[in-house]
């Protein structure tokens, strides 16, 4: 039973990552490889802060600007230096590998007795508490992203991905929007990395490898689900759409999560 509960928790911890990839892949049409690096960045930063006894809630919040910084560097390299989007992501991912090693000073930090936002396995009702907490985080992020995309600013963001010429003709600097969008996307990914670290109890230099693939897979699966079924059911509100993205990424990550877990056990 514990095995499946843990997989559900891991699946939910991947929800912010899936929404981050959704932003970069679906809205900007950029498969953002930075994700692999920023996921680990979130994990390593949290691990270092946890071993220094920083309050875990503050540490989790501090992960967001760190991820945003990584994303905006990719954005700046892509828009200002006119480097291909895929290549600039790869560059930053590779750079982040060294940064992460530098942050941790070694390739792996165990968090056996360190504090986290999740209660430890030894306490009673830990499953319900952890499940509720991570559900609340996932729900909050789904709501925030769907609300953001409905604002005036979010509207310009959605337009940038689909028709850049028109957006420029409407007086919007597409470079600025792209950089900001990549920053938000990577902030979410880093948050996800930090949540996964807290659940699994260690940070590892290689834990981000292949994350972008998992994210792209969940976005594609959710995409085919929403474009076919949702139109048929005439449910097309923003929240159901993004909720669906989150749900499918959860299901997918449950599947990978259980594989992940069984590899560890």
């Amino acid at each position, binding site marked *: 039973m514990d095995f499946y509960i843990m997989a559900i928790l891991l699946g939910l911890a991947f929800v912010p990552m899936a929404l981050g990839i959704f932003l970069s892949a679906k809205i900007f049409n950029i498969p953002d490889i930075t994700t692999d690096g920023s996921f680990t960045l979130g994990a390593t930063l949290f691990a270092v802060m946890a071993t220094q006894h920083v309050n875990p809630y503050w540490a989790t919040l501090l992960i967001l600007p760190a991820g945003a910084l990584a994303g905006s560097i990719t954005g700046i390299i892509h828009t200002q230096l006119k480097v291909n989007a895929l290549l600039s992501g790869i560059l930053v991912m590779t750079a982040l590998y060294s940064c992460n090693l530098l942050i941790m000073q070694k390739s792996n930090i165990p968090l056996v007795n360190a504090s986290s936002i999740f209660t430890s396995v030894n306490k009673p009702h830990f499953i319900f508490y952890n499940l509720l907490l991570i559900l609340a985080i996932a729900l909050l992020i789904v709501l925030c992203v769907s609300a953001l995309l409905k604002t005036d*600013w*979010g509207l310009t963001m959605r337009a940038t991905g*689909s*028709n850049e*010429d028109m957006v420029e003709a*409407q*007086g919007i600097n*597409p470079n600025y929007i792209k950089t900001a969008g990549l920053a938000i996307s990577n902030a979410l990914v880093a948050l996800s990395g930090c949540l996964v670290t807290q659940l699994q109890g260690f940070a590892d230099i290689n834990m981000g490898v292949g994350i972008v693939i998992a994210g792209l897979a969940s976005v594609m699966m959710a995409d085919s689900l929403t474009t076919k079924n949702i139109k048929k059911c005439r449910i097309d509100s923003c929240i159901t759409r993004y909720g669906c993205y989150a749900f499918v990424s959860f299901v997918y990550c449950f599947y990978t999560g259980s594989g992940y877990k069984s590899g560890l056990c």
Partner: protein
Amino acid sequence: MLEFQNISKSFVDFSGQKISVLKPLSISFSPSEFTLIIGPNGSGKSTILNLIAGSLSPDEGHILIDGKEVQKLKAYQRSAQVARIFQNPLQGTVSDLTVMENMRLAYLRNHSKTLKFGITKSFRDMVKQHIAELKLGLENKTEQKMGVLSGGQRQVLTLVMATLSRAQVLLMDEPTAALDPKSSQMLMDNASEIIAKKNLIALMVTHNMHEAAHYGNRLLILKNGVIEDDMSSHRKSQIDVTALFNYQNQDPLFRNSKVS
């Protein structure tokens, strides 16, 4: 008032040779003047529009909008003053967004894009009123995706978007090239009406002699980067389609190609 002062533009081709597209040109356009530009391919028609919109910058000279120099500003910085309708209906609108969201984007042209929900009830009513003025029944389709509308409908909505943004200059680059005759007529009628009503400075490039003869109140004939003829409203009203064809057929560039 839109002014060109000694504007020239040249391109360098792949062999390094300089091709002069626009010879030094000084001209001015005033509000509610609907200028049509005709001329053979490569005569510099689209270059004029691109220079005004900011997609190209001139080699020399000044472009003034209301007495303010704009030639150094980027396209997105000029967009508060300049609205544009492209030849391809897909280019002027975002297919993935609804009609209402497209309208909101156009409206935001002169506003800062903040984190607030801009599509409110009053905004919806305002947009519907604007669209209803077209008398095409499109005001009931504002929640549909732009992508499901026809090319003609999208072009007309682009026109509404240009007026929502309160730009002073309206540039149209063969807006009817991809439309059927009925949609073209609808677009041209609506454009003429809106230009007159909102006092816009309008420039339109066309290859359609029928449009050149029937619409607008000024006609520029361009050849090899030089304005060959500048017809005012009075002279323009005296010519018809045949006269325009004959005029162009005297041109050595046209003489060999038969225009039916």
